[in-house]
């Protein structure tokens, strides 16, 4: 069993996974995707989860975001036992605590870019209704998409859609951003721009957890966790976290 690797064990972790196991029922032969993961992540960290296809990295981030449930183990995020929450509570919690960014952007195709960003605020009843558009525009300005606010996602390039998805992830001002292969569907220049955006967010004390199999990207995070066969087999702290 790999040891819990934390850069600063003295400080209380924002996110703590303890002995997290995930087994998929594959019919005759169940498949163990995560084999007892232990992990602490602190506020302001920019963590990369790196591994080959099928290593379990997406399963791991799905455990963190509450998108999937662990078969065993505990996941405590900002004091909330995520592993014990039901779907409904999870949705509410996730909306306020974690912004999720997907590889294929997953913007709702029938809403404009602006409306896509307002939607999480609407669901979680964050901000006064009249402030939501204003905030969404601010976020779009941050990701340099203010001029695209009223377009439908289909009218945007892949990089623009991913920046819009990041703006949506930030809509409720969550402390954590979880991104699954956010640059996997983008060209290198656009991927670089998106990565730069993440770096700026880290400077604003956001905690970012990013799954990637891109080694270049992996080298630019501050802490890299290598996952293989459902285990964290290596951790590298490349740069100290912001403010640490």
């Amino acid at each position, binding site marked *: 069993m790999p040891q819990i690797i934390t850069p600063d064990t003295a400080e209380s972790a924002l996110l703590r996974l303890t002995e997290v196991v995930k087994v998929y029922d594959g019919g005759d032969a169940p498949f163990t995707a995560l084999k007892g993961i232990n992990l602490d992540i602190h506020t302001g960290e920019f963590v990369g989860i790196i591994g080959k296809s099928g290593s379990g990295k997406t399963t791991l981030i*799905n455990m963190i975001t509450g*998108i999937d449930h662990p078969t065993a183990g505990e996941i405590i995020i900002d004091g909330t036992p995520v592993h014990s929450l039901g779907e409904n509570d999870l949705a509410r919690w996730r*909306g306020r605590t974690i912004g999720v960014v997907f590889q294929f952007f997953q913007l709702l195709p029938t809403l404009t870019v602006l409306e896509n960003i307002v*939607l999480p605020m609407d669901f979680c009843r964050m901000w006064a209704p009249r402030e939501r558009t204003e905030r969404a525009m601010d976020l779009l300005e941050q990701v340099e998409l203010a001029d695209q606010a009223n377009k439908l996602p289909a009218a945007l390039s892949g990089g623009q859609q991913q920046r819009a998805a990041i703006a949506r992830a930030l809509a409720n001002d969550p402390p954590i951003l979880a991104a699954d292969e956010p640059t996997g569907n983008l060209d290198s220049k656009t991927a670089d721009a998106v990565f730069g955006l993440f770096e700026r967010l880290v400077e604003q004390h956001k905690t970012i957890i990013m799954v990637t199999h891109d080694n270049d990207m992996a080298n630019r995070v501050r802490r890299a966790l290598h996952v293989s066969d459902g285990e964290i087999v290596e951790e590298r702290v490349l740069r100290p976290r912001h403010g640490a």
Partner: protein
Amino acid sequence: MHAVRWRKVFRDLVSHRFRTVLVVLSIATGVFAVGVVMGGREILVREFDSEYSASVPLNADYFTMPFSDPIVRRAREYPGVEAAMGRHSTSLRYRWAGSDAPRSISVVGIKDYDDITVQMLVPEDVRSWPPRRGEVVLERAALQVGKYEIGDTLEVETSEGKTESLTIIGFAHDINAVPAQFIGSETGYVSFETLPDLGEVKAYNELLVAMSGSDLTQREASLLAEDIQRDVLEANSITVLGSYVPKPGSHFLGDIFKAVSLLLLALGLLSLLLSGFLVVNTVSALMAQQIKQVGIMKAIGGRASQITWMYLGMVAIYGVLAVLVGLPASAWAGTQFIRFAAGILNFRVASYVPPDWVTALEVGVGLVVPLLAAAVPVRLGTRTSVVKAFNDTGVSSASFGHGLVDRMLGLFRGLPRPVALSLRNTFLRKGRLTLTLTTLSLASAVVMSVFSVQASIGQTIDDLDAWWRYDAQIRYERPTNRLGVERVVSSTPGVTGVESWIGANATLDRADGTTAQGFTVYGLPYGTRFVAPELLAGRWLEADDTDAVVVNTDARKAEPSLDIGQRVTLEIGGEKRIVHVVGLIKGQLSGSLIYMDRELLGGMLSEDGVTATLIQTASSDPLQQRKALDAAEARLEEANYRVVSTRTQDELREQIADQLGILVAFLVIMAVLLAAVGVIGLTGTMTINVIESTREIGVMRAIGAQHGSIYQIFITEGLAVGFMAWAIGAAAAYPMSLGLTELLSGAIGMPLSYRFSWVGVGAWFGIIALISVAASVAPAYRASQVSVRDAIAYE
């Protein structure tokens, strides 16, 4: 901005126009079917009942020797009588420019048109009212058989053999008059002043009596009718030639009406059921299509309840749109349907507005049923975990290959790969397949059953042909010398055989002292070769019979005492006779008939002679038969024999087919509606299957599939579903059509000869193949237009 999620709902509705139209049409079809059928039935019954009861239907009808006003006054004053009136009725032949052959008309002479108190007559389209001397107002059903116009002249042959002109001055409606298309004889109303011109006496010869009491029983009506006959007519020396006491409150088309009403009720319930299936299927498919978006919304903080309300809201909007489409469409179609029904059943419609509860039911079907149907699939969809939603490809790869059906499909080797793929795809989504198959199989079973009911009606008419061994008949105004008329008719060119019968009205004395009315007794030679009796029980008449009678099923149904082996008392022409029921034959849609030996019947009647001559002709061509009949009629007229009507059996067959055709028409409407529901269901399923297979299509295109292959895959899938529904439907059609035929037999009071229609099974096979292809073409086209890039990126 709370409305953002609702904007998504609206945009989804608008951006997926094809899907929206499909779902709205699915629901609207249910609203439409329920509106037309239930509304149609309610309006039909309401308007018919309202007009029928307002018409003051008669409870007793006496055909008598001439009488005058004092008799009518006595009848009106008789206890238990609500209204009574006298009129003069006679049947005459006439020629009209619109018809080559002479036709028959029932002429009704009314003394005072302002004093019609029984069987109300409503002028509808008249140049003047009431008719004056030399004028006639036709009962409007005449328009169903000929293009009569105001100003046309009828050349009527009077009872004295002269020709008198009557000018049509308009049309009136009498709900109690038997429509012309059913009896081959029009009804015309004239003034009393016209009667002498027609060779008739200016006096009443028919007394119509309406009795008091809304809950009058047949027995009470019969007893009162006998009292009136004795105390009002016979006590004043008025000879009663015949009388008729119908079942109180029962219209002569009541049985057909009941059958139509039952059919409509069955159709309404089926429509409701099928539209429910359709909505469940469509909403389930919609949720399957939206599952990834549900996952996204949950991933960004949307709760299951919030997302559930969004989709229920979407379904509610579909429902509102469907009601907006379905309500006016059903109102329009309902009006056409009622007009059609009112035309053939000959009643007037004062209002086409359905009762409120029907409108409420339509709104319920449009709004509540979809929400109820959607509740489970929406709940299941929104409760799906985010990870499951993201991994959803419409079908779990693990869901196929384990079941018995899947393994059996795997045994089909050597099929072209696209065909094999289509067949296996068909069984991929088993829940949806079950719902689609249920809808389409039920529709198939009903359509094939309709074919079988139609075939059964055809068989029944064929059976009549088997019973009739003659081609035409001539009826005389009064008993006529048999040898004389047979000599004249048999010498007519084209006539190969003649036989004359005696017809008379009869009543039956029941054991409880009451009288059963409305029987016709035919006297015919026991060894007749002009009919081929198919006995259901007992035997036919024999040479040494002295008191034997054979009854038909209609008579047996009207009077249960007419059972094999029973001895009953018949009163014919004023003479009572105990007869022995020896045989039962099937009814021929000609009412309650009793057959006995001609000599026996002749001996009971005061006036010698026969009332009808049956003719066999050399030709099987109806036109030639009619020609021979006209020639025979002309010869009889020349020889001073008074003919009251002539009819070929082909014409009679057409009249019967017209009556039963009402049922067939309603059955066809039923079949078309259900087939439409099935088509929409299959189109919906195919469309959703294509959407769910988008990624698969992309993969196939990436590995070289061309448009034709994609078309082939989806059209084969549509055909597979269609043929399965056909097979299941064909198996269900036998018991269903048997039940439907029995239901109709019971309703119209006549056993229909059941025949399963293999032609229908074959025809539906072809139709369902076309439907399946048609339902799959649009989805297949959409599939063929999917680019590889879009398909692979489809999330």
